[in-house]
């Protein structure tokens, strides 16, 4: 949960844009759409096409499935398979409600328990 919050802090070193660079490749383009990914590689003179993107996306099925599961379970993260997914689900919910990490943990910790 804390890690997800950090990733959305623009000053966090892992996500901060460095001015000491010549060009930038958009990480998000790979998760946005085929067109965005193709356009991004095209910026660098690389002919990337829908077929290659689909092959990559298929190789990343676990990632996309996990992402979807997290997004589908904001309200009830308990049944999510992995612990990290549960932490991310409450963090994404907390951020969407403008909660601080501490507020988010206090409010949603109980959702991590699997209901019997």
């Amino acid at each position, binding site marked *: 949960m804390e890690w997800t919050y950090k990733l959305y802090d623009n000053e966090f070193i892992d996500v901060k844009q460095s001015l000491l660079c*010549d060009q*930038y490749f958009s990480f998000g383009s790979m998760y946005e759409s085929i067109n965005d990914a193709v356009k991004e590689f095209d910026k660098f003179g690389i002919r990337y096409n829908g077929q290659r993107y689909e092959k990559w996306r298929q190789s990343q099925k676990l990632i996309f499935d996990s992402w979807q599961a997290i997004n589908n379970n904001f309200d009830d993260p308990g049944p999510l398979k992995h612990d990290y997914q549960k932490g*991310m689900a409450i963090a994404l919910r907390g951020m969407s409600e403008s909660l601080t990490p501490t507020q988010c943990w206090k409010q949603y910790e109980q959702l991590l328990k699997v209901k019997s």
Partner: protein
Amino acid sequence: MFVLIGNSGSNHNYIGLTLVNRQPQDNLAYHNQGTHGDVNVVDISNMSHDRIDHVIKNDDPLFMFCFASKWNADLYTLFKRFGINVIQIIIDSHRECMLINWQEKLRINAMDDTDRIFSKEWEQQQRQSWSPYTKFPIERERLWSGPTNSMTMSS
């Protein structure tokens, strides 16, 4: 040749290999075809300037990689002296996917022992750090940038 700035989970091996016109074999993780493999992709994150200088002059790498937390003005100056392009993978949107990548590729479905051991150590750190405060130490996991690379965890 170029230097790619990124992080664990930023798809830097797949992106880098594609940018040098390689078509990597489909896989969940591409470490073994890039920085962890026997192709000439060099992680310079923890190298001395002398070593980097040697690599540039003698090894003709496909591309080089550096963790964002290790990138600095001195390194930029060094690479510009050789006229080498510097590209940052900018974590602009869907940032949570970087974390999913890290968890799935290094922890849950790690493809080799290097990744597996690294993530096990991280998991132990999280348990030690958070166990006194919560029954859910991994769900509450945290990180900050540390001395070795951007995925060093601490409490």
